[in-house]
């Protein structure tokens, strides 16, 4: 029993790592631009399909490198044309707009690639378990966790030590002042949005290796990321990281005892956090009101 539990905690961490990747992108955009990006799942699917399309030419590794930036480019276009006019308006509007975009993404992928799911093969070296006993730790899943760790580290280094990162963090706290100091806020928001969508594209490539790639796959992955953000605390990327891992482990453990509740447990966790600590685990004071 103990072994089973231990297995599932490890397993939950692996799943949680994936939620983190998606939630961080969502969180970046939310923090700086006050936009809940409902189309995040759509961008994820697009990333997956781009990878599927270019894999025959550049291989899996090439797709892993190329698909996320390509997705980010689409993200920049969307931000410039559609989302930019909405800054400063009631957040309701950006919410509705991205909600509509999610429709367009789902239908667009179905139009371009068809409703039929696509098979994605991962390199043979990743497609096997590392040991017989820990069979659920496959090369691919380990690689996923490593990629997430790398991406998270890079993101945190970017935010802490580069000029752009410092501006983004400052903008999260007080955009008016940052703008007053002569920073091009429009550019800042575009780059920040692109970084968020890059992470969505990366999640898409990674997900395509493990899940079935089809136009509707994004919708189911969006909610856990939402909860990761709320649990971790809005405004704190470290909180999002913690929140993602926490709900991954919680749902992994619940799946052993009460599978029907493995999804609901995330919401229970969220309700408990909101009751005890309304601003989330590491949320900034005042961000959540």
């Amino acid at each position, binding site marked *: 029993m103990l072994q089973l539990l231990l297995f599932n905690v490890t397993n939950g961490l692996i799943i949680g790592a994936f939620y983190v990747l998606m939630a961080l992108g969502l969180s970046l955009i939310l923090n700086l631009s006050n936009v809940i990006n409902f189309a995040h799942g759509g961008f994820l699917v697009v990333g997956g399909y781009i990878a599927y399309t270019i894999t025959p030419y550049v291989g899996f590794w090439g797709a892993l490198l190329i698909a996320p930036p390509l997705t980010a480019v689409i993200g920049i276009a969307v931000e410039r044309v559609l989302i930019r006019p909405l800054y400063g308006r009631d*957040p309701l509007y950006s919410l*509705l707009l991205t*909600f*509509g975009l999610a429709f*367009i993404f789902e239908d667009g992928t179905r139009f371009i690639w068809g409703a039929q799911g696509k098979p994605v093969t991962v390199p043979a070296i990743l497609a096997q378990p590392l040991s017989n006993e820990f069979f659920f730790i496959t090369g691919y899943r380990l690689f996923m966790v490593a990629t997430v760790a790398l991406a998270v580290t890079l993101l945190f280094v970017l935010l802490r030590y580069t000029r752009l990162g410092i501006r983004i963090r400052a903008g999260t706290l007080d955009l008016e002042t940052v703008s007053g100091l002569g920073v091009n806020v429009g550019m800042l928001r575009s780059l920040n949005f692109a970084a968020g969508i890059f992470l969505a594209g990366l999640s898409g490539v990674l997900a395509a290796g493990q899940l079935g790639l089809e136009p509707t796959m994004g919708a189911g992955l969006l909610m856990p990321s939402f909860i990761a*953000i709320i649990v971790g605390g809005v405004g704190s990327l470290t909180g999002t990281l913690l929140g993602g891992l926490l709900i991954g482990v919680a749902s992994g453990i619940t799946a052993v005892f009460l599978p029907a509740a493995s999804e609901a447990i995330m*919401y229970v966790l969220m309700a408990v956090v909101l009751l005890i600590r309304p601003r989330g685990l590491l949320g900034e004071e005042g961000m959540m009101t």
Partner: protein
Amino acid sequence: MMESDTARKLAVLVCIWAALLLAPYWMPPLGGYTALGTRVLILGLAAMSVNFLLGFTGVLSFGHAAYFGLGAYGAGLSLKFLAPSTPLSLLAGTLLGGLAGAILGTLIVRRRGVYFAMVTIAFGQVFYYIAFQWSSLTGGDDGLRGFSRQPIDLGISKIDILSNSNNFYFFVLFCFALVAAIMGFILRSPFGRTMLAIRENERRARFLGIPVERHIWIAFTLSCFFMGFAGALYALLNNFADPKGLHFSQSGDFVMMAVMGGMRSFWGPLLGAVVFVVLQDYLSSVTVNWMSFVGLLFVLVVLFFPRGLLGVVRRKVTS
């Protein structure tokens, strides 16, 4: 000036009610069908309930479909397990939706803006998963079946609302009028004025000694009761309740109807529902890619008609 204003308002009201009352007669020749009219009324009522909170208190709930769906399940379960009575099922649905809203409202009211929206979505999804997973009670993904709306007993005679779709339309219209009247009454009351004050300037309202949180909670709860009622009607329309009705994508549709019609006005959401439902019904019949068009509609409304259709009309009248 004032007189002509009231006269115009009265004329608009008469027009709206005449159109609604005569709908079963003018729709079929134009290519509509009565069931579509009933659907418009019910979804319109739901959109007005969302707008009760959004347009008049200025608080955005993106998870209101949960209370709509709870209303549907409440009505269905009461018809199936309690008693075959239509009024009882409406009461059960309204109570289930409203009470759930009242309880969750206490957890939610301190949040504002996007965070309020996020938390309402997440809590809405809780009910979605309950309906989805508790299959022994709710039928799970297959939905709750095995009930149907019952004749209305007026003492003197029974009205068959099951097989006669016109009768059911008028029954729904009667319910709609009742709830619309209650909503209008609340909005005209001092409480309704306070809601507007909070919407316009929350800080100021707070300085004036208005207990803002409590007012938002009351408004949230009331709108959940209205939502539950609309959901109960929806269950009667389909003789069915299913988890999709609780999903946040359904909430998005309701908010869109409110915004598209014009969220600053009382009747706006109904107009939005008319356009949205008819357009979706039509588009999905002529093209498989209807989702792109609906998505495009969202984008266009947000970018070009943020005040909604009535907002555009009104500006034209005043200018």
